[in-house]
């Protein structure tokens, strides 16, 4: 007898762990992604172009941008609601989720946590509405996993600051109206809120990407860029600044990566039920079912972990090590799920007609950015042994 198939995460009854409000927020984002993103994202991916300004406006109207922050036009939702939204956005495309992560968790969070009241008033409402796009520059061409070596620097000139150097792999870089840039100064690493129309600022689009093609990635160059004293984020003067923001964005990724994985798995199950070989659906073969079962287990375990870390975060208890555990596991398992799903789709699996290869390629970036898999392994290793193995 044929039973009605159940969706992978429903097998875990994940919904039973969520409040009505969390489900409502999730469903809103899910509907938006189904209607607005999924029909077009393959074309954006192929052309390497994303209508960022348009999407930012729509996401702003929904309340997605900076949703977990309070005040200044932000919705002030729970961390779990933010995480669930990331899952839905990334079920559309990791590029869309990256746009949102960078805007809300990196650029807005930096200003929200470390900015002056004037900076918050000036930037946050427009960023929450999606009128102003932000980017976040920490990584440099020569300093990725080890940002403490950064060369970008800011020197005082009377009351002003002069910024020199460059940043690499900056999401939203070429479309941003404001960049939060981290630079070395005489009093430690400081954050600067840089309007991108300031003379001396340029952004160069990075081409030939094979991953996150539906996302803008740029190099930022600062050539004797003059900033007033009011441009510096007053409340932090060390790497704690960018790391606080990264921790926030990583939290979104431990939910987000599972969205891409879920979309792959659901596609692979649908495909397997429709695709006949040897006179029956390939979903009916034991080898395929073992793949489905193993992937479902990893997806569900990842979601349980994500929600657990989310609940800790909402109680103010989540540590950065716990976020690392989540990022390490969920980015790694999502990538593994995408690969196995790709195999189930056979030749169709390599095209943009199905979302799987696109997610698979995207997840390679997700595996690397916001702390590589190795970095998070070392964080966990240090937590377990007390011994740092970074250098």
């Amino acid at each position, binding site marked *: 007898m044929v039973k009605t198939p159940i969706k992978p995460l429903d097998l875990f009854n994940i919904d039973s762990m969520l409040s*009505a*409000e969390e489900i*409502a927020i999730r469903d*809103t984002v899910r509907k938006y992604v189904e209607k607005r993103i999924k029909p077009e994202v393959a074309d954006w991916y192929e052309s390497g172009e994303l209508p960022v300004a348009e999407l930012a406006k729509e996401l702003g109207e*929904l309340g997605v941008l900076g949703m977990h922050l309070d005040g200044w036009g932000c*919705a002030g*939702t729970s961390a779990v609601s933010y995480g669930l939204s990331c899952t839905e956005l990334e079920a559309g495309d990791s590029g869309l989720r990256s746009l949102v992560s960078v805007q809300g968790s990196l650029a807005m969070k930096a200003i929200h946590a470390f900015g002056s009241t004037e900076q918050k008033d000036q930037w946050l409402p427009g960023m929450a509405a999606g009128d102003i796009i932000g980017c976040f520059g920490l990584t440099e061409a020569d300093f990725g996993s080890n940002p403490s070596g950064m060369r970008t620097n800011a020197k005082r000139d009377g009351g002003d600051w002069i910024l020199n150097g460059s940043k690499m792999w900056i999401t939203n870089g070429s479309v941003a109206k404001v960049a939060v840039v981290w630079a070395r100064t005489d009093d430690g690493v400081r954050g600067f809120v840089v309007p991108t129309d300031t003379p001396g600022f340029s952004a160069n689009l990075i081409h030939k990407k094979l991953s996150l093609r539906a996302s803008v990635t740029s190099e930022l160059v600062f050539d004797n860029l003059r900033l007033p004293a009011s441009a510096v984020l007053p409340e932090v003067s060390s790497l704690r600044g960018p790391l606080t923001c990264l921790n926030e964005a990583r939290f979104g990724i431990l939910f987000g990566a599972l969205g891409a994985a879920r979309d792959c798995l659901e596609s692979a199950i649908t495909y397997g039920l429709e695709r006949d070989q040897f006179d029956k659906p390939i979903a009916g073969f034991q080898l395929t079912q073992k793949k489905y079962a193993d992937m479902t287990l990893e997806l569900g375990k990842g979601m349980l972990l994500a929600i657990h870390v989310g609940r800790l975060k909402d109680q103010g208890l989540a540590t950065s090590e716990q976020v690392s555990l989540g990022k390490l596991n969920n980015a790694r398992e999502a990538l593994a799920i995408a690969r196995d799903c790709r195999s189930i789709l056979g030749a169709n699996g390599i095209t943009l007609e199905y979302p799987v290869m696109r997610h698979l390629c995207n997840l390679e970036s997700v595996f690397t950015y916001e702390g590589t898999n190795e970095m998070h392994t070392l964080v966990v290793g240090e937590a377990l042994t007390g011994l740092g193995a970074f250098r």
Partner: protein
Amino acid sequence: MKIAVCVKQIPDPAAPAKMDANYNLARDTKLIMDESDSYGVEMALQLVDKAGAGEVVLFSMAPGEEVSGLRNALAMGAHRAVLISDPRLAGSDALSTAKVLAKAIGRESFDLVLAATESSDGYTGTTPVQIAELLDLPSVTFAKGIEVKGESLIVARQTEAGFDEIEVPTPALVTVTAGVVEPRYPNFKGIMAAKSKPVEKLSIDDLAFSPDSVGASGARETITSIRPAESRGAGTVVVDEGDGFAKIIEYLESLKVI
């Protein structure tokens, strides 16, 4: 402009349906807002927006004090809700449902009562006009558009050939067809605000019904048997060999629709 919108909360149509012992749809699962009603909610919000002021009040009869579908409509922007929930209402037929909703709506005065043309679970399509009759209101069905003109409404009523334009004095009841407006996504501020919007809960005692006039005992309809709908035969597969367009034309011509 003050508008009442009837909102049915139904078992998720995406989930497999279960029937109870009396051949009624089992409603002991999580209920959601009937998508057909989201068009009425959207229409009401747009009319109130255009009028510049007013109120959109939701009315729902549902078991188990279910409010999640109502919260959804409140998150879209409706102002408050009235929920009639009473175990003694189980087994109500369309007319009893209409009586209950009419009584609840009739406690206040509204310029307009909106409902969907029919619900997505029961498909009787009779409740709205019964409500109109009980409230002594004129009713217009199958609206694809509503415009306010002084004390009247101009309703575009969908027909097979196109649409009729009907002028109706307010207060009136209008049923709205699906797909005529794009129901807005509730935004997160709306969702957060919906938590604290008032939902008034009423029992049949609050509405002064005797238990035998509503619910299963008051129902004049009984369902004596049910059977699965006949499954449709497989469709014809037409392979496009560059002449797909011509084949579609040929097919439509054979049906005499073009």
